[in-house]
């Protein structure tokens, strides 16, 4: 019951019948894992299922799951906790910045959880106070994936809580969020402004109904009273709600005055002008007792526009602010040797250049510095995207954020924290996020020209009527400004974008800046990262070949046995090759191994029972001429890493390892190319590998650029931009963050690891590239909805303005026509059919 030797890992794990789905997560079950009663897709799911049932939580959990359904496709639980982050959670620094002190020794902490998606998750996580001692309250906010914990530091450590969550497959990320966050206060302020505006506008509307219904000046004075009350109610709307627009309008006016350019005029300017003209003329009508009032239109206009803005803000907040990525990337403590020869922990921020720190195998390197020890394998994937660790020797420079894989090393500190290489990258990227207007391209250009057009039309019309019939002057100007009040235009784009963003978030696509849709539609160059984006970003076993025929569907027994023994040796290894063996052996029962010895840069040897097993590269385990040799040469020709397994001195099989392509990679490339865009593959790996991978997905060698370090990637994108191209970057990892930020649109494929979220304009938390394809498709649809809205509102405005200039519209009619046009735009935006495709998982 084993996979064939020619299959790729995706096929290895997803070969399944439709009837078999994982009892925990519902994903398809690989063939070798099919059970009689319950089946699981992976060890992670199986152990979560077992833990849930052992602790008596299983029944409620799965009952709730069945009855309520998922919000989106769940991800597989990751059983391996991020030890580095767990240590961080308990550090003093974390406590200082992330907890607020409550009474009785309790503190409150907010954690961001990965993988919460249904009512059952809420229930399970909120069992925390019962399950662990020292927790008073646990509240999960599902749309934001945010857990609010009230706990006692004396009784329990945060890492213990995180470990508990990890056990059930919920990844933990720290985040400053909640009452303290600036964004929360802003959002609440806008919500209050909106609520007050609606309440006042509603009451003005009630009074206006009386006037529409025929209340007219008579002896009771009710007519005048109604007008005065409306006037009084409109003043707070103007100040509280309208202030939002006045400020923006004023700022844009000052800016365009300074820069002498109408390009900077904001759509809020005609909105403010319309509001002000309407208010002043209605106010004048109230005071003098002559003319029409339309306080109700002003009120509804302000309230509706604030609503659109609030929806936008809320949708953007769901995408989260990730300004704390440095914490997740760099350890806050380092080890130093004390006088007695033991290890003490020091805060990295207290380290000075010249200090010596010690890094144990498997730990993150906390500082930039010079290696003092003889050497170790360093995994630099976080910085360079290179998936294979590099051997560094004495005197080499090592960087913070990379992982020390094999040996205990001493490092002389050069720079720490934000001064380090990765720190500079992160702080640069996060500084640039959020700058620039959210409205892009022709929407804002249109807004500024529209403003100019409306104002000049009013002046011309005013002059004409002043000469022709001065008594008609005021009504014409007022109708013109009210009917052209660009609320339809002002809402057309933002609301459609906000609704689209919200829908996308539910599909695991988070959009931080709405200009993404606009840009994605206009992009003509798409730069793709290779490692971790198009490929899985980790080594996997792609082929196992023995001396027997390769064409067999199943691996022969003795080869399976050899692989199991090899996996037993590799089961504790942190080396990527060891991890590949661990993935292969998931779900298989392994023998136990003894006296294993690592031979650096060669392999590993040890005993399984009395059998001597060696697993290593071909220099260490030379192959005789024969089938094995042929296989290994063919594999090497494909650019794969080849490892031999030797049993009792006789090579048994050769194993090919590669960083395989994701399942939708070629589909994505085809989709992008079909829409007439140019694709460039850009990687930190060497050119040959890059070209080879590019060829697999149908890219010409010229479009595949290897040996690109993060700065070169950024340079490439800036180069394209300076040639006037519009560039999208799709990448992952910190190494891409500069490029993601430099591009017009940066899309990060994160799958919950969050390393590059802060630099990207959009990121997906859903596994695979399908989400990216969807993003490309749906952004086109959203832009079409916006175009439809804009064409409609422009048409309405031109028609309305012409009628108003000719004096055919009275202000009353204008006040009715305007909200009706807005309503049409709002419904067209809200009912858009985007991001509706069902996720197949």
């Amino acid at each position, binding site marked *: 019951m084993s996979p064939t030797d020619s299959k790729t890992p995706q096929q290895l794990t997803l070969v399944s019948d439709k009837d078999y789905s994982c009892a925990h997560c519902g994903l398809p079950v690989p063939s070798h894992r099919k059970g009689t009663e319950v089946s699981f897709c992976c060890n992670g799911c199986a152990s979560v299922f077992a833990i849930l049932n052992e602790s008596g939580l299983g029944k*409620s959990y799965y009952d*709730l799951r069945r*009855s*309520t359904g998922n919000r989106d496709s769940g991800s597989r639980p990751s059983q391996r906790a991020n030890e580095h982050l767990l240590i961080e959670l308990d550090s003093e620094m974390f406590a200082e910045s992330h907890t607020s002190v409550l009474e009785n020794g309790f503190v*409150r902490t*907010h954690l961001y959880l990965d993988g919460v998606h249904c*009512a059952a998750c*809420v*229930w399970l996580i*909120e*069992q*925390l*106070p*019962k399950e662990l001692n020292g927790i*008073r*309250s*646990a*509240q*999960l*906010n*599902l*749309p*934001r994936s945010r857990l*609010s914990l*009230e706990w006692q530091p004396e009784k329990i450590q945060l890492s213990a809580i995180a470990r508990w969550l990890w056990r059930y497959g919920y990844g933990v990320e720290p985040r400053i969020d*909640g*009452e303290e966050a600036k964004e*929360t206060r802003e959002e*609440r302020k806008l*919500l*209050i402004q909106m*609520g*007050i505006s609606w*309440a006042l506008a*509603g*009451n003005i509307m*009630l*009074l206006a109904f009386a006037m529409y219904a025929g209340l007219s000046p008579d002896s*009771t004075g*009710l007519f005048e*009273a109604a007008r005065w*009350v409306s006037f009084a*109610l409109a003043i707070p709307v103007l100040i509280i709600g309208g202030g939002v627009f006045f400020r923006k309008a004023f700022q844009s006016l000052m800016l365009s005055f300074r820069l002498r350019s109408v390009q900077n005029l904001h759509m809020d300017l005609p909105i403010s002008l319309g509001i002000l003209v309407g208010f002043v003329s209605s106010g004048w009508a109230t005071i003098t007792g002559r003319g029409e009032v339309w306080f109700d239109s002003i009120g509804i206009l302000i309230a509706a526009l604030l609503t659109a803005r609030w929806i936008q803000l809320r949708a953007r907040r769901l995408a989260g602010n990730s300004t704390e990525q440095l914490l997740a990337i760099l350890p806050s403590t380092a080890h130093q040797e004390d006088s007695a020869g033991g290890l003490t922990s020091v805060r990295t921020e207290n380290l000075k250049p010249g200090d010596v720190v010690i890094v144990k195998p498997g730990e993150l390197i906390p500082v930039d510095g010079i290696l003092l020890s003889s050497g170790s394998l360093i995994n630099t994937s976080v910085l360079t995207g290179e998936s294979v660790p590099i051997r560094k020797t004495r005197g080499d420079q090592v960087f913070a954020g990379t992982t020390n894989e094999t040996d205990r090393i001493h490092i002389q500190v050069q720079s720490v924290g934000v001064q380090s290489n990765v720190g500079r990258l992160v702080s640069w990227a996060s500084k640039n996020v959020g700058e620039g207007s959210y409205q892009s391209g022709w929407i804002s250009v249109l807004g500024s020209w529209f403003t100019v057009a409306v104002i000049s039309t009013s002046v011309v019309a005013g002059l004409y009527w002043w000469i022709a019939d001065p008594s008609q002057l005021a009504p014409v100007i007022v109708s013109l400004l009210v009917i052209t009040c660009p609320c339809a235009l002002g809402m057309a784009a933002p609301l459609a974008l906000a609704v689209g963003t919200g829908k996308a978030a539910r599909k695991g696509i988070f959009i931080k800046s709405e200009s993404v849709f606009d840009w994605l539609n206009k992009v003509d160059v798409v730069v793709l990262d290779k490692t971790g984006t198009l490929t899985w970003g980790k080594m996997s076993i792609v082929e196992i070949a023995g001396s027997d025929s390769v064409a067999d569907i199943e691996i022969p027994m003795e080869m399976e046995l050899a692989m199991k023994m090899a996996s037993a040796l590799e089961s504790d290894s942190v080396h990527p090759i060891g991890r590949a063996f661990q993935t292969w052996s998931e779900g298989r029962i392994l023998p136990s191994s003894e006296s294993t010895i690592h031979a650096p840069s060669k392999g590993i040897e040890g005993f399984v029972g009395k059998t001597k097993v060696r697993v290593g590269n071909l220099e260490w385990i030379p192959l005789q001429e024969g089938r094995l040799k042929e296989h290994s040469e063919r594999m090497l020709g494909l650019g794969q890493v080849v490892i031999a397994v030797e049993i009792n001195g006789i090579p048994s099989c050769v194993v090919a390892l590669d960083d395989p392509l994701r399942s939708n990679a070629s589909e994505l490339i085809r989709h992008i190319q079909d829409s007439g865009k140019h694709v460039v593959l850009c990687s930190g790996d060497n050119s040959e590998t890059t070209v080879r991978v590019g060829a697999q997905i149908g890219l010409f060698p010229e479009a595949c650029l290897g040996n690109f370090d993060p700065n070169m990637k950024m340079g490439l994108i800036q180069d394209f931009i300076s040639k006037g191209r519009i560039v999208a970057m799709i990448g992952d990892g910190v190494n891409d963050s500069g490029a993601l930020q430099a591009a017009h649109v940066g899309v990060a494929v994160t799958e919950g690891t969050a390393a590059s979220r802060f630099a990207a304009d959009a990121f997906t938390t859903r596994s695979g590239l399908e989400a990216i394809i969807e993003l490309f498709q749906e952004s086109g649809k959203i832009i079409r909805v916006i175009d439809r809205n804009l064409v409609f509102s422009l048409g309405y405005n031109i028609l309305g303005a012409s009628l108003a200039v000719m004096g055919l519209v009275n202000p009353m009619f204008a006040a009715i026509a305007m909200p009706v046009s807005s309503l049409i735009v709002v419904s067209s935006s809200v009912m858009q059919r985007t991001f509706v495709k069902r996720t197949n998982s």
Partner: protein
Amino acid sequence: MNVLYFLVPLALLLAAAGVWAFIWSVRNGQFEDVETPAMRLLFDDESTSDDSNVS
């Protein structure tokens, strides 16, 4: 019709009370999460934490 001079201000007062309640609930964080509390209804056993203090 003179009763309107009493009823309209009364209505406005009621509206003001509503606005005050709204502001209070926003400040209290009642609108932070409108989805999860609906799910909590489905849980059989007693609530594990006090619901008054959503942050």
